[in-house]
């Protein structure tokens, strides 16, 4: 069973066992516009909940990517660094950013489910 949750910073997180896959939401990509640069954390580093764990840049501006939970970076999606436009094309699936071995599963409880996030995204863009 996998569980997908969402953060107020517009990241999605999918938990399978104790491995979490993290990316940015479709709503985030629509707000950003064409993404032309992506930077990921280094493999093996530890990241803390709500800390920065990457950068995306559109033609307009740079934005930090935050990690919604704490853990150790175990895998990176190099394909989005090589071709950042993939993030616009498939943000919530193949264009994931990084995978974490998570420290504390209870951190997932602080995040929104799909319905809650959809309402939050709608309100935050109006």
């Amino acid at each position, binding site marked *: 069973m996998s569980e997908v949750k969402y953060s107020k910073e517009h990241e999605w997180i999918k938990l399978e066992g104790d491995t979490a896959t993290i990316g940015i939401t479709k709503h985030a990509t629509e707000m950003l516009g*064409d993404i032309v*640069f992506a930077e990921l954390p280094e493999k093996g580093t530890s990241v803390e909940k709500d800390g920065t764990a990457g950068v995306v840049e559109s*033609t307009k501006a740079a934005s930090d990517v935050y990690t919604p939970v704490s853990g150790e970076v175990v895998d990176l999606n190099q394909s989005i660094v090589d071709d*950042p436009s993939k993030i*616009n094309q498939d943000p919530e699936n193949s264009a994931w950013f990084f995978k974490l071995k998570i420290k504390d599963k209870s951190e997932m409880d602080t995040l929104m489910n799909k319905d809650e996030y959809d309402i939050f995204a709608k309100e935050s863009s109006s």
Partner: protein
Amino acid sequence: MDIKKTSLYQLHQDSKAKFVEFAGYQMPIQYSEGIVEEHRFTRNHSGIFDVSHMGQLFIYGQEDLVDDLERIFPLDLKNLKLNHSKYSFLMSDTAGIYDDLIITKIKDGFLIILNAACKENDYKILKGLLTDRYKMILDEERSLIAIQGPKSVEILNSVIQGVENLNFMSGNWFTLDDHNIYITRSGYTGEDGFEVSLTNEFADRFTRRLIDKGAKLIGLGARDTLRLEAGLCLYGHELSKDKTPVEANLKWAISKERILKGNFIGSDIITKQLNNGVSKIRVGIKPEGRIIAREKTKIYNESNLEIGEITSGTFGPSVNGPVAMGYVENEFSKKNTKIFLEVRGKKHPATICELPFYKKSYVKGVN
């Protein structure tokens, strides 16, 4: 103050524009296809830009006016032919740039196109210098539409016959449905194209006709990536009151004849800088890899000394990589000089390069 809207506002809305406030106007930053696609469409086809927020200043007068304007602009206006245009600057006594502009000789006077954010101040300065001797109209009744890209000549000519005969940096009056339209072959994208001055009431209908012929609306976002790839300056970024045309590496726009004689505003400093050089100068900068260096990014030399600052930086869709412009100390301004850009606390390698990043395809002579 209320935010102003151009005559194309409804059309922008109908075209699903995302808006941004720019110089007191509600302007489209992009439409539904996004900046990169709009940029590519302009390079390959034909893009329409609403630039009605820019100032259209008409000044009417004869020989006296030419003399008086030569005391202001570093141009050989006496020899500027009817319907020909020149790029120039309104400068302070110390040659600081108040605005960069295009001045065109028209029948009975001159038409000057000014930046939106500068136009009110420019008018005040020029009114102060020219007093009430000439009729001066900062015309709010006219819109300005640019059409840019390789297919623009064909599209515009199918709507207004004869525009294909215009040479680069020249213009003429045309008539369409009883409306007087002034068209110049010019632009701000590095592509062949035109700027069309027409009455506000006709702007919407006219633009929809261009769209029917296959041109697409392009927002300010792509306008910025296009001009940056073309190595063109943007006021408030590359140009300001603290920069002179020589520092901005725009000395080509200053008439050599006028330099010899002097006697225009700022001529002392310009002459001095042309003779002695400047301490900092505008250059093109190509970052290595994909890192984007935005405005205010600090520039370092190989010995880790700060030597300048980025004034504009973005991702260039046609270059398929990052591009930037900035000012560096003169000794580091040579082509291929290795520099470093500090982005998010890390120094990234980059190279000083020639401008433009993207080669122009302006039409020089069609006749």
